[in-house]
């Protein structure tokens, strides 16, 4: 590998790692199902609103109407079309979800890798901070933070980033600690590579599958947290997203009036998307730890069982 620059090697290793992740994603039936679900939502998020003719925000006179041909998912208390809201809301929730998830991952990666690589005092300090943020309950802190800042998606995103980075940092730190003493790191150090390059171009590519799995669960948590904050009323109540649909339906007493079509669809979306993510993660888990894999039973005639 002499003569091949670090960045080329890094990108090759990243590519290799991602290919393994792709292999894992298409290997398992569960995982394929999960990927399909997530892909479906992504498609809706990107292309859905283009097909919506009804404006989700207009009030109509068909107030509190159950699902029908005209309004596929019924209408809200003020006559807004729920189906239009769901489709438009998907875009908002997913894009903000992915973006925030990315932000959280960046913080996790930086803290986790730096802390794991340097060890010593740096590690002690960062680990302490990480553990403190892990142990302080996230939702109450997020609520306190969000209530002091102007309401909106950006506040929600920032607040979630501040409260949600610790878990990923902890996981990545553990992995980096074990990678630190591997030969390729020592070799890179001996050849005089700059520290930050070692961290991000040597170590990170080798952890890409862990990062991918972490990203999946982080994004799910982010979407749940955002929906929770919006449900309480800390989001931007004038835009349409899954969380704000909860907020409006709850505050319009949809429960008691019986407008189930208002709050069931957004929750179903989150649940399905979450299930998709969970299935993907399940598959990545099984792939990473072979002991969790289900051995396919081999049926052969006249085989004496080896285990009692």
């Amino acid at each position, binding site marked *: 590998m002499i003569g091949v620059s670090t960045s080329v090697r890094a990108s090759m290793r990243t590519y290799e790692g991602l290919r393994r992740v792709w292999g894992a994603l298409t290997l398992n039936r569960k995982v394929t199902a999960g990927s399909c679900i997530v892909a479906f939502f992504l498609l809706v998020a990107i292309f859905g609103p283009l097909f919506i003719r009804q404006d989700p925000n207009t009030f109509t006179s068909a107030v509190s109407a159950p699902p029908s041909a005209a309004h596929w998912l019924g209408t809200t208390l003020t006559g807004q079309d729920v189906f239009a809201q769901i489709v438009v809301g998907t875009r908002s929730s997913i894009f903000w979800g992915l973006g925030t998830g990315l932000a959280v991952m960046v913080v996790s990666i930086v803290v986790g890798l730096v802390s794991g690589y340097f060890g010593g005092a740096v590690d002690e300090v960062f680990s302490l901070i990480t553990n403190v943020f892990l*142990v302080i*309950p996230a*939702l*109450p802190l997020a609520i306190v933070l969000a209530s002091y*800042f102007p309401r909106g998606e950006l506040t929600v995103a920032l607040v979630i980033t501040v409260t949600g980075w610790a878990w990923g940092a902890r996981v990545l730190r553990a992995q980096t600690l074990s990678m630190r003493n591997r030969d390729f790191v020592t070799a890179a150090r001996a050849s005089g590579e700059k520290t930050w390059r070692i961290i991000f171009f040597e170590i990170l590519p080798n952890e890409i599958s862990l990062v991918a799995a972490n990203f999946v669960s982080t994004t799910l948590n982010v979407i749940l947290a955002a*929906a929770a904050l919006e449900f*309480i009323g800390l989001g931007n109540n004038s835009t349409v997203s899954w969380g704000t649909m909860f907020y409006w339906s709850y505050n319009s007493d949809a429960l008691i009036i019986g407008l189930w079509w208002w709050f069931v669809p957004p929750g179903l979306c989150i649940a399905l998307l979450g299930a998709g993510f*969970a299935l993907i993660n399940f598959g990545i888990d099984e792939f990473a730890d072979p*002991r969790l894999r289900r051995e396919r039973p081999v049926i052969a005639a006249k085989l004496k069982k080896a285990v009692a």
Partner: protein
Amino acid sequence: MRHLIRRLSFYVIAVWASITLNFFIPRLAPGNPAEALLARFEQRGSVSPSALHALEIALGVNNQGPIWQQYFQYFINLFHGNLGISFSYYPEPVIDVIAQNIQWTLFLGTISVIISCTVGFLLGIVMAWKRGSRLDSTLTPAVTFLSAIPYFWLALIVVYFFGFVLNWFPFSDGYDTSLYPGLSPDFILSALYHAILPAFTIVVSSLAGWLLSMRNTMVTTLSEDYILMAQAKGLSERRVMLAYAARNALLPNVTNFTLALGFIVGGQLLTEIVFSYPGIGYSLLQAVQNSDYALLQGIFLIITLAVLSANFLTDLLYAALDPRVRVERSA
């Protein structure tokens, strides 16, 4: 012992961190929204000067004096239990509001966590033991799906379906409001009856986490040599599964518990909101809607203290369960 002292000092640091966060967040907020709150206080009625001063310190208004002095004063106020006056429950002090509501949260929380953990762990053990069987392959994806359901959505559905449509269980309040609160059997029964739906929601939402976690640690443990040796010793399947495998697989889950607790608390708050359960969650919603910052911060602090205490108790439990941690007895 040394291990426990280390954990304790960590929790002390965490408490200090939350107090510090509480102190600085209002001071960092743009536009100083707390001032508006204090102005509204004036409209509500008279507040004693000392209470007003405490609120100012807590919410970073009228910053008189150097910041470290305010910081110091804040700590002193906290040690006296002075968390300020609640706007939403005026004129009750924050600490009283919380004290009243936290009993219900603890009641509901303890029941739910115990049921959820026990059922989750037992199922996880059984599923790991029968890995690859039909039970495992059907239940695992089903449970995975359950774990993705947001707490409050499940709560909404449960309230609507079981409470409103079927009317099997009450779906608001903690007890029959016509009864006088006290330790009478009627009251206790009513409290339990009202707790069924919210507890059910919390259990269903959190069960999956325990189950999958226990299943995974069991599967890892089952590949250890001492399990093989236990089987080689001709011990009964149940003994190997429980005393050898589960007993060891339990340990990482105890650690997991401390991390999951914060998350579960969040979920419970949301559930309480949906069920109008007279716990902390409901007061939290009031506080947010009224911008009652003193109450908001007070709730955050008390919840954090509760979670940290639970964590410390779990650490004690872990030390009792894992002899390797007790480095006292040396070889």
